[in-house]
């Protein structure tokens, strides 16, 4: 775990990770105040603004990646190159329309576009967003309904005692959840509520607890350099 100034590319990220890890953990519990300055407030508000700014700028690199991949696919006429061409055209079109006709184009905190530009582009933006993007999103979401049935059909086989218990409790919860069943037999609702409130909550609490402690221990490992791969992007 040697840190050396000569190996600054490795050392600086590790040192920053340590300092900020300890600092943010510390400020959550202890506030240091000098006059009007409050360390906790500064770290939770002003510093977050800097992070948000860096984060927003970094999206440009993601966009470059998208363009690079689809440009190659288009120029080399790989399979389905037509869709890559669509992506290459539509991303800049939507970006320009969003900047000049989107909801924040007239927000005085940002760059304000002339009102006539916004008024002429806003209907196009609304159409593209609500009639295309939003609907496609809903279509993808609705695929879940189909997938749940096919996954349930395939996966819920009573192969052993564990899966038999899972199958029976699953069927009881499904029957209890179907609204009509309350009028068929109110017992379905009672059984479902018990299954959801008792074994389900107990199991979830167990997983939540384990995951939270695992996260805490992992965080300690990252801060104290036992786990360096995320900080150094894979380098040791």
């Amino acid at each position, binding site marked *: 775990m040697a840190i050396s100034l000569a190996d600054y590319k490795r050392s600086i990220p590790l040192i920053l990770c340590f300092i900020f890890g300890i600092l943010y*953990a510390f400020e*959550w*519990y*202890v*506030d*240091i*105040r*000098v*006059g009007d300055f409050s360390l*906790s407030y500064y770290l939770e508000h002003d510093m977050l603004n800097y992070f948000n700014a860096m*984060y927003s700028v*970094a999206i440009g*690199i*993601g*966009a470059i*990646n*998208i363009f*690079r*991949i689809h440009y190659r696919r288009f120029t080399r006429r790989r*399979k*389905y190159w037509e*869709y890559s061409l669509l992506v290459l055209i539509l991303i800049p079109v939507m970006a320009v329309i969003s900047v000049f006709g989107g909801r924040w184009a007239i927000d005085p905190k940002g760059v304000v576009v002339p009102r006539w530009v916004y008024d002429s582009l806003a209907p196009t933006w609304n159409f593209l967003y609500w009639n295309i*993007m939003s609907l*496609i*999103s809903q279509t*993808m*979401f609705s*695929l*879940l309904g189909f*997938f*749940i049935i*096919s*996954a*349930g059909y*395939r*996966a*819920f086989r009573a192969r052993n005692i564990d899966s038999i218990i899972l199958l029976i409790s699953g069927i009881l919860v499904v029957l209890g959840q179907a609204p009509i069943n309350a009028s068929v037999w109110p017992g379905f609702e009672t059984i479902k509520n018990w299954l959801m409130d008792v074994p389900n909550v107990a199991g*979830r609490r167990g*997983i*939540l*607890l*384990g*995951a939270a*402690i*695992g*996260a*805490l*221990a*992992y*965080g*300690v*490992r*990252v801060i*104290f350099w036992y*786990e360096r*791969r*995320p900080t150094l*992007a*894979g*380098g040791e």
Partner: protein
Amino acid sequence: MHGMTIYQLEVVLRSGRVAQGVLLVIIGILTVYALEKAKRRPEAIKVRKIPAIDAFEEAVGRATEMGRPVFYTPGMSGLGSLTTLSALSILDYVARLTARYNVPIIVANRNWVVYQVAEGIVKNAYLAEGKADQFNPEMVRYIASWQFAFAAGCLGIFFRERPAANFYMGYYYAESLELAESGYRIGAVQIAGTTSTAQLPFFVAACDYVLIGEELYAAAAFLARDPKIVGVLLAHDLSKILTLAIILIGAIAITAGSTIILDILSK
């Protein structure tokens, strides 16, 4: 002196967090103790097998035999989530395997910052395996930030490029079942790992192996095959024992009519 303001330094304990802070310090000490103990005597710590972890190499081997790529996604959350960091640690291992076995890897990212870290990890993994010339930046892709646009992009990858092994590590939302079920349709072997309790049932139903909750954090250490990292698992378990002890004592106290544990924990 005229015009000079003297400020007083105040150190204030933030209310409602003192007990949390003490517990954090204790768990931190337990973690460091466990890691140091494992460094000195790793053979003293017995570890149960997690089938999903053994399946990693098997899955990549299968992809190699079939001549089809490996698909990996580090989840939907950003770099601020420890689940994503753990998924990135596991990516390092999977990328080294793919480099070693000469099988292409496709890493799909929803978050543009995670994409950059993932690219660095895969590149370094290929470098470490001596296969730097085989690294192609197109292996690591930023798909989209919208949840279902990302899912659609991944489904497109599945049906066009037909990966033989799919790894879903990290935090997921509603798209988890879409990914897993579509992966099943193309005949891929699937290994998932998530702390999201809402999506675990879908992964358990549709995937071949699942890392549940803390197993994801442990896997990052396990896959490195570093003997002292069993200390990580010991740290988890010691922390859990402490938490369970507090819960048990608190439950007994409350049943007996005393709120002392509640009062201490709410300080």
